[in-house]
């Protein structure tokens, strides 16, 4: 092993988390009314715990994989992306589909923008955004008859 290879702390901590999930699953199976529903999850959970424990042991002996190299890249943008997605999903039943879609589209556009904003670019991008949002709205809401959320806040 070369010295510059860092130990896989991330992989090991994931293994610990998976063991925790397996333990929770085994605890969960004790509450089932029908024994048929417990067999499979219990077996799999034990397998998960076993495999992850083996990985931990190997890791403790210092023979696990090398750590994955952390890519560079912007953390604020990554986090903002996830936040916008989650907020959009939670807000949709209240505010309604179209406003949320337009707002989140605009925000994500800004998060993913790496070039300088010029007036021309802004105009084209906003137009494209409108076309995409309303195009999909028409496709789903009208053609495919998907009942898109209308927003409880603005109803009666």
């Amino acid at each position, binding site marked *: 092993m070369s010295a510059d290879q860092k130990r896989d702390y991330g992989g090991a901590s994931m293994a610990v988390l998976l063991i925790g999930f397996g333990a929770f699953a085994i605890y969960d199976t004790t509450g089932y*009314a*029908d024994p048929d529903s417990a067999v499979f999850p219990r077996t799999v959970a034990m397998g998960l715990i076993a495999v992850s424990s083996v990985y931990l042991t190997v890791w403790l002996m210092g023979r696990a994989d090398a750590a994955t190299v952390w890519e560079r890249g912007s953390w604020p943008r990554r986090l903002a992306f996830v936040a916008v997605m989650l907020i959009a999903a939670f807000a949709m039943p209240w505010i309604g589909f179209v406003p949320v879609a337009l707002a989140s589209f605009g925000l994500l556009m800004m998060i993913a923008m790496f070039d300088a904003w010029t007036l021309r670019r802004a105009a084209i991008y906003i137009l494209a955004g409108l076309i995409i949002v309303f195009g999909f709205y028409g496709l789903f809401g009208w053609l495919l*008859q*998907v*009942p898109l959320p209308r927003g409880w806040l603005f*109803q*009666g």
Partner: protein
Amino acid sequence: MNFIRRTMFTAAVTLAASAAAVAADYPGKALDYIIPFGPGGESDITARLQQPFFKEKFGQDLVVSYKPGGGGAVGWAELNRLTGDGYTIMGVNLPHIVLQPAQKDVGYKTDELAVAYWFHYTPDAIVVSADSPFKTLADLTKFAKDNPGKLVFSGSGKGSANHLAQVRFDKLAGIKSTYVAFKGTGASNTALLGGQVNAAWGYTTSGTALGDKARVLAVAMEKRHPKFPDVPTFKELGIDLVSGAYRGIAVPKSTPDEIRNKLSEMIGKINADAEFQKKMIDGGFAMVDVPADKNADFLKAKSQEFIEAAKEGGILK
């Protein structure tokens, strides 16, 4: 104070009057008919059968959409949160809406669902493959008595109409059989035809779907099914078993009674249509007519039946 009371009174009167007026105009636009299951199931098929008749009789479209999940629970938990103007209606199923809330907290209670009409049911039936040694129900019960536990039935799901029928049949016939749950009627029928099991607790609809590859031994109906005139009912054979999966239509609780009754009447009219009845019966379904005002009694009787069988079958504690 006086002013407030007067306003409230006026409001109540106007509301009642407008509800009556709304009921008179109802339906003025397309209805959104939500099926709390995925496309392709029997609930979907029966809704599709109603669709053209609704359009023909009342001039409005019945737009079917799906909200599957949790064996229907996701849809029913949401039903009372939807707009109660009569333009949003949802399919309801028995035994599901009785057993789910009895088993666990699923986000709705049985008596919170405002059912407008129970319009048909698919009767339970014992089906064997065409080459089975069981020619009659007596052959089957004899085998079960000689070999306790070795008679293996396939069926659709646990806590389903099929499963409850098996539990009740075992008790009534004094036998012990094994029930294997499959995911849906299609899988259960496949296991039957493939010889994985001795017989299937299916529905009359499985009998029509499988045609001459299968034989129906008995149906759980009051009278024989017109599509199977040669197949006896359990009652004829001395077993008091009338059961199946019932389907109806419910509205959000906030829907005015006038509209709910009007809808009930409308579904009744479709049910009375001879051509509709023929299509349903050809498909293996059986008709029932339980309008909105009889729902409470009907549901009470069925609940008792289902809960008792579920306890027997070990699904309910």
